Each structure stands twice: as structure tokens, then as C-alpha cells.
């Protein structure tokens, strides 16, 4: 019996991401290394995913100590852990019912939701937040998925459409999987990847011909673009959704990492509130955040939240019901809680914690950007937020031609060769919805790995004739480029 027919066409339509093929290639290479095959490198360095702990960032000690103590409460009574850890763990353990193994309430433990709304009120300098509008999630992808599930109920014709930025992560796939359709709006790659309202209008007009667009999805700070929206830009967006009666989904997962000099993050909620009537009462906004990115980087723990503003109460009830099937991990909520209620000066673990933030991402991202942008064959828009590097590759014609010969997209071809020859795994821009003709790669800036070393490796791929000949050893190329970096 053919099994193909078993599979729902909706699923069959999900575009196989090139990243999947790269992951398989990476796994194969790792196996080969384990089996002793000789390579110019001895491990795969995967910077294609948001896994800062894999590239040198240390997990936050305080957070880990608190969680470990909640998991094994005997640690609370011992003096292995600093006092502030023990006190925090004790409080949290009581809130979660005494064990991390209990079921959580379906929309999150009440105390956690209160914590989130307190944090939001503080962050937004007094704009009130009600814990009744807060839903705990497994993380931002989950939050976005929940919103989509709520939008797409049953088979609808025409399809529900969501305006989605290009470039963005795994462009459109989550939408296809939920039965909606992604309507691309193109960010301006010449102007730091900003949004233009004219482009939104164009996208909306074209969308209306093929689907029923109901929502606008924005990512701020942008991923992978690193663009941080100005207040004016955000107000324009809010006016746009108000006039066109669209829902606004704001993914603000990277709000903790601000790179650009003088760069400020303001939440959509705050801007909306400060714009006053009629916008602040009418625009339906859903904001997403999590403990997966930023300086926590605890993606594997699954702690995040979603906040709904101005949504109809009946919608929220439906939402409640939809997520009742899922279970939320308790540990993820603990990680979220620690992120939102960081240490205060004066607490024993505070010093170490501060150092951790300062020392890591910001410095390295800035440095990485400077080096990258100065290399021939590579150009980079300024990075103001988030920790993604998104350089544009000016691939030589020979490389593009070779890629086409092998029936591969040029940026995927580049990534595949890069992985094979250097062990470095990055993400091809073609997965992010960008049209043919420009080639990008995306990777997560490693916090403490010697950024210069692998940037040099990247460079080799542009300037050396590496792409035709597979036999040049890496060391030779390193010599070729006597760079004055240490």
C-alpha cells in the first residue's frame, strides 16, 4: 500500500527547508568524525540555530542554581547554594505545588502569569498589564502557532492570510502547517532592513486578490535583520493596522539584546497605549516573548508568554480551550520567571550576573559586524538588536554557475561547501523567503568563540578559488590571508 496517500496534503505542501538538509549533512559529518575519518577540523560548529550555549555563552548561574534547587529541594536546605538562590527556589517551589513534576495549569501557573504582568508593567513604565491577558507558552514559535490555530478554524475559503516579513525565519512554513497563507512584505535591504508602509500597502493589495488577510506579523528587534524599529515607524504600523482592520502580532523575543549605539527598544504595547484613542482601544495586539533568546538562551527549556491586548473576551475563551490540550513544562516557567525578575544590586549573586551580561553578546556582535563588513565580497547592514549576523554574499559567477549545475540554490550550495570544508554550519538565506538574485547567510553570533577565526574561514570561501577545488587544505588558506587579527 502506498503510504504517500496517508499524508495530509497540507503537510506535503510544507516546503522542505534547506536547513534540514544541512542538519542531515552535519549529522553525517559528525558520525564520520566519530569514526575517525580525517578532516581539517575536529568538530562541527553549528551557529545556524539559536543555541548560544553551544558556542561559548555560559548559562546564567543564578537561573540554573535556582532551577536545580527546585528540581532537587534538598539543595535548598544545604549551604552549597548562595542564600538568594535558596530563598528564590523556596518561594518558587511553593508556587508550583511542591514539585517540578506536577501538572501546570493549562495557561500557566497563576503566580507566573502575575510575574509576567508585573514585569510588563515595569518595563512599559506604568502601562498596565493584566495577568488575565497573559498566556504562558513553550516559546515564541509556539506562541505564534497558537495565534495561527486560533485564526484558522476549519477549512476556509478563501485562505486566511498573514502579512509576514521577508526575510524571516523559516519563512511561511508555520503558516502553511496551520492552513493559513503567508503574504510576504519585503524589508528594505539597502536601508538596514526597515519596514516601509508603502510596501505593506502593496503587499496587502496583492494579498486581497488571493486570500483574506487578517493579520500583520512584525518582528522587533528583527530576526535575522537586527533592525530595531523607531517609535515613528511603529506608530505608522499601528495606524496601518488600525485603518486596514488587521490584527497585529508582534514577536519581541530579542528585546533584551540591543547592540546599536543609543538604541532603544520600546514595546508595541507601550507605543499603542501612548498613541491614545482611537488606536489604543481598537487595535488588537498579541505580543510574544520568551526565555529562549537573549542572554538566557534557554531555548531547550520551553518558557515563554503571549500577551493579548484588546482581544474580544470570547476569543480569549476559545483560546483557553484550544491550548487546554497541551501541557506546559514547569521548568520552562521557572526559567521565564528568573528572566523577568532578575537579581537586584545587593543580592549575593548580583555581581557575577552583571558581569555575565556585559561580557557576552553585545561586544562580540559589534566586533563580528565590523570585521564582516570590512571583508571583500561580503556586505552587512548595521545590526542594532538581536544576535543574528546576516551578511550578504557577493558570490563569484563561477560559484553561482556551479551551484546551478548541481541543481542547488547558490546560497545553500555555499553553506553546504562551507560545512563540508570547515565544519561550520550556517543557515542559507533562501530559507528566509528572499527572492533569487541576492544571497545571504544567517548565523548566530557566537558569544565567546574567536569570531575572527571563523570569519576568516568565511572569507576564504569568497576570495579563494575554493569553490572549484576541494583539495586546498584549510591551513594553506589561513596562511594565504595573513590577517592582522589575533
Amino acid at each position, binding site marked *: 500500500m502506498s503510504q504517500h496517500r496517508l499524508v495530509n496534503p497540507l503537510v506535503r505542501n510544507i516546503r522542505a527547508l534547506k536547513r534540514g538538509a544541512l542538519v542531515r549533512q552535519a549529522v553525517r559529518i559528525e558520525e564520520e568524525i566519530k569514526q575517525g575519518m580525517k578532516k581539517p577540523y575536529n568538530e562541527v560548529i553549528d551557529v545556524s540555530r539559536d543555541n548560544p550555549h553551544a558556542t561559548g555563552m555560559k548559562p546564567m548561574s543564578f537561573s540554573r542554581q535556582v532551577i536545580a534547587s527546585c528540581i532537587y529541594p534538598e539543595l535548598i536546605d544545604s549551604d552549597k547554594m548562595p542564600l538568594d538562590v535558596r530563598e528564590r527556589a523556596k518561594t518558587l517551589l511553593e508556587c508550583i505545588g511542591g514539585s*517540578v*513534576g506536577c501538572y501546570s495549569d493549562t495557561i500557566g501557573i497563576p503566580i507566573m502569569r502575575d510575574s509576567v504582568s508585573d514585569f510588563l508593567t515595569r518595563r512599559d513604565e506604568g502601562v498596565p498589564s493584566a495577568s488575565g491577558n497573559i498566556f504562558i507558552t513553550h516559546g515564541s514559535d509556539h506562541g505564534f502557532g497558537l495565534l495561527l490555530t486560533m485564526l484558522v478554524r476549519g477549512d476556509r475559503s478563501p485562505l486566511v492570510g498573514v502579512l509576514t516579513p521577508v526575510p524571516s525565519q523559516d519563512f511561511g512554513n508555520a503558516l502553511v502547517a496551520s492552513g493559513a497563507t503567508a503574504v510576504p512584505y519585503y524589508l528594505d535591504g539597502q536601508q538596514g532592513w526597515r519596514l516601509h508602509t508603502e510596501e505593506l500597502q502593496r503587499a496587502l493589495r496583492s494579498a486581497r486578490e488571493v486570500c483574506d488577510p487578517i493579520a500583520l506579523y512584525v518582528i522587533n528587534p528583527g530576526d535575522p535583520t537586527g533592525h530595531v524599529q523607531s517609535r515613528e515607524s511603529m506608530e505608522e504600523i499601528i495606524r496601518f493596522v488600525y485603518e486596514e482592520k488587521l490584527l497585529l502580532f508582534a514577536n519581541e523575543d530579542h528585546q533584551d539584546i540591543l547592540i546599536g549605539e543609543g538604541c532603544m527598544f520600546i514595546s508595541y504595547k507601550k507605543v499603542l497605549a501612548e498613541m491614545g484613542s482611537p488606536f489604543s482601544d481598537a487595535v488588537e495586539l498579541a505580543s510574544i516573548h520568551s526565555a529562549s533568546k537573549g542572554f538566557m538562551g534557554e531555548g*531547550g527549556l520551553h518558557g515563554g508568554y503571549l500577551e493579548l491586548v484588546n482581544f474580544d473576551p470570547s476569543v480569549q475563551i476559545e483560546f483557553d480551550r484550544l491550548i487546554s490540550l497541551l501541557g506546559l513544562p514547569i521548568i520552562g516557567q521557572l526559567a521565564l520567571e528568573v528572566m523577568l525578575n532578575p537579581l537586584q544590586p545587593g543580592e549575593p549573586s548580583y555581581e557575577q550576573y552583571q558581569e555575565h551580561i556585559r561580557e557576552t553578546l553585545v561586544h562580540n556582535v559589534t566586533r563580528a559586524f565590523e570585521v564582516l563588513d570590512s571583508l571583500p565580497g561580503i556586505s552587512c547592514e548595521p545590526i542594532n538588536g538581536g544576535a543574528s549576523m546576516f551578511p550578504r554574499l557577493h558570490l563569484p559567477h563561477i560559484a553561482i554557475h556551479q551551484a546551478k549545475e548541481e541543481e542547488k540554490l547558490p546560497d545553500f550550495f555555499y553553506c553546504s561547501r562551507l560545512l563540508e570544508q570547515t565544519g561550520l554550519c550556517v543557515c542559507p538565506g533562501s530559507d528566509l523567503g528572499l527572492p533569487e538574485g541576492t544571497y545571504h547567510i544567517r548565523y548566530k553570533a557566537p558569544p565567546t568563540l574567536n569570531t575572527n577565526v571563523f570569519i576568516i574561514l568565511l572569507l576564504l570561501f569568497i576570495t579563494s578559488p575554493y569553490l572549484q577545488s576541494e583539495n586546498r587544505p584549510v591551513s594553506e588558506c589561513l596562511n594565504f590571508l595573513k590577517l592582522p587579527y589575533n
Partner: protein
Amino acid sequence: MYDYLQSNFSHDSSPPFQGVPKTFSRVVDLCSFDPQREGVPPITFLQQVLAVCFYPELLSDENFALDVRQRARRLIQSCEGSSVGCYTPSSGLVYIQHRIAEFITRRDAGVPTDAHSIFICSGFWRTLTMMTKLLSSSEGEPQNGVLVPLPYPHTLAMVLGLAGIRSVPYRLREDTGWAMDLEELQRAIRTARGCCRPMAIFISNPGNPTGHVQNRKSIEEVIKFAAAEKLFLLVNEVDQHSVHGSGIQWVSYKKVLFDMGPKYWEGVQMASFHSLSNGLMGECGLRAGYMELVNVDKEVMIFAETLLNMDISSPVPGQLALDILLNPPQPSEPSYDLYTQEILTNLATLTENALRAHDFLNSLPGMSCQPAVGGFYVYPRVDLPAEAAGVEADVLYCQELLEEQGVCVGAGSENGNTGGEYHLRLDPSSNTPTRKHALVRLGAFHLRFLDSYSCGPHLETP
């Protein structure tokens, strides 16, 4: 009913129905399996290993037994970047997939298992939801159908409904402890063919909420039936560790399939499910389970993986805990004694409470309960007086019980039992005084309920 509960109560102990005087101060939930909340202790070995995984500085702490530290070290190494905070591949950590495969092969006395056909997911329901998404049809095609047992697990209807799949019930036989009935299966498939495109059959073994454990012969019958009717087997085996009936042996569908020889082994397709939340660890808050696909095309497995990519993978702590659930300490290891003692104590506690509830309810007039031998559900039939009968009378019964006594039990209609027969669903977990007392209150309510029908006013339907 579940919705009613969810919308009115949460796990905190604030009194419901503000302003209305009640005889109780806190609702006791007797139908959700959350043993740790009710005082069934977590397993020390698991707590210790996980704590060390989170805070690897503890690897040098000799207060932790050697096997704890060795296990933690191995698990930490299996994580990307040696951190539990890193994302894993969408179908789970490769090392854990291998460990699960090892467990299955051991459990099934050598039946080969491919680690690539193991998909780790965030709990049984999430995994099943994903599988049903894969199986559901799209607009314009005839609706796909799944044969489901009656009674079925109460969340099954919602999962299938969300995927747009038609459920066609096959009745289990209450008088034989809720066994499967081949004739019923055949009747069901005929019905199904008349209203949809039946693609799969869902089975719970041990049964949920029935507690029935199938013998080998019964499993063989079902497999032959599925083969003949070209149905995909969806087998819920999450309670496999909770078999407590004396002399009862649980055997996996996969093992039986294998033993039936190449004719079936190479033809029948199956997905079997397991989870961390059930059984003796009761680690519901960690959110982990897995699905094993047997005889499924590699192409279809890639679709499954793609879907998982779009979906939520299992949080890392849960994946690590799966390793501990399935590969416990060995007799030669320092933690073995304590671990075994704790597991056996939990098994004894949970079994005792299920049996106590079973015996107590059976002793009430108008209630009869089949013996459960696997899992800890108690699923009594309630003979409601004729005057009380009506649509969803069991739901009304449960609502009254909740409002009057603050005791929450599940209504059998949520498990599909509608029309004429009424059941209740309990999951007694622990034996805290509160819960013991709750059972007593249930009994008292029941007697009053029956009494009010023999000489009292009629039940007012809202």
C-alpha cells in the same frame, strides 16, 4: 464537564462560587492524574540527576552517588553545547532516541528497533495530535476516519475533532472487564465505510479509562483485523508500567506483531505511544513522551519530522527524564536500592488507592465497577434512577457533586458513553486524608442522590 471544571477552578485553594456558602473549602479533583501534587513523592534518582544536569558544578560534589554523577555527565554530553538550554533536533536528542530504542528492544526480548523511527515529543496528546494531522484529509476529499474504543480517553475526541477526523466507535465489553470484541470491530468498520474513509484504529493498552490489559490472543485478533482492513494502528501504551493485576502480563503490540511472522510484521503499519506523565514517576510537569513508527515509509517519516519541526519539540529536561524512566539504575549501582524501593512504594500506593476506590464504589448501591488491572483509573457504571435519566444525566450528576461536595469526578459521556448507560471516571492517585474523605463524601452524595429519587423532588434540569 472538563471545560466547566477548568473555567471554575484552578489548582489554588481559593473557594469557588464566591459568596455562596459551601460545606467545603477546597475542591478535590479526583479525575486528573497528578500524583505528585497529591503527595506521591518524585523519584530521588531522577531529581538528583536532573539537578546535576542543570548545574554541572555539582558533578564534583561527592554527596551525589557515583551513578548519579556518571549518568548526569553522560546526559549533559548528549546535549548540544553540553547545556540543557540548547534546542535539540526536532525529533529529540539523538542519544535519547538510541536509549529509547535500547529500552524497546530489551522490553520486547530482542525485536529490532531503529532509533530513527523514534520521535520524542512533548507528551502523548501532542504526539497524537501531530500524527492525526499527518493522517487527516484535506478539503474536497472524503473525510478520514479512525475507529475508536468506547469508552475512549476523554481528550481523544477533541484531538480527532481538531484534525477534522471522524471517530467511529467500537464498543468494549463491559461485562468482560472491557475486553475487545472482534464482532464489534467488524460492525464498526462496516459502519465506518458508510460514512467516511477509515484509515486507522486507535487502541489503548492498558485501557484508558478502563484499566483493561489485553492478552496476546486479543492483540493478535486486532492485528489480523487491522491487516485485513488495511488500517493503521495507533496504539496508546502510556500505562505499560502501571500493570498491577496479579498474574497479568502486558505485552507490546510490536512484540506480538513481530511474533506473528513476516506476513504481518512486514505489512502492518503502526505508531505506538509512551509518556513520562503516566506510570510510577508521574512526571507530568516535564512534558515528554515518544512515538515509535513501525513499517512506515521513510518518506512519511520525513513528513513527520517536518511537522515536528513546525511544532514544539519536547523540552530538554523531559527528554533526559525519559532516559531515566526507561533505563533505571542497575542492581550493581549505588542508587539501585533506593530507586527500586521508591518505585515499588509508588506502585503499591497507587494500586492500593485504585483498589480502595474500586471496592468502595462497588459497595454502593447502583454502582458497579469492573476490576482494573493496568493504569490507575476507576470507571464505575452508575445506574441512575429512571427519573434522573436523560441527556447527559451523568454530567448533571457530576456537576451537582461538584457544587454540593466540592468533589470533582469525570462524567462517562466525556469518554463517549452516551445514551442510556452512565459512568464516572476517577483517578484516585494518592491516599491523603483529603482524598480519602472526598471518596466518603462522594458516597454520601450518591446515597442522597438515589434517595431523592425514590421519594424526593425531581432533579431540576437547568
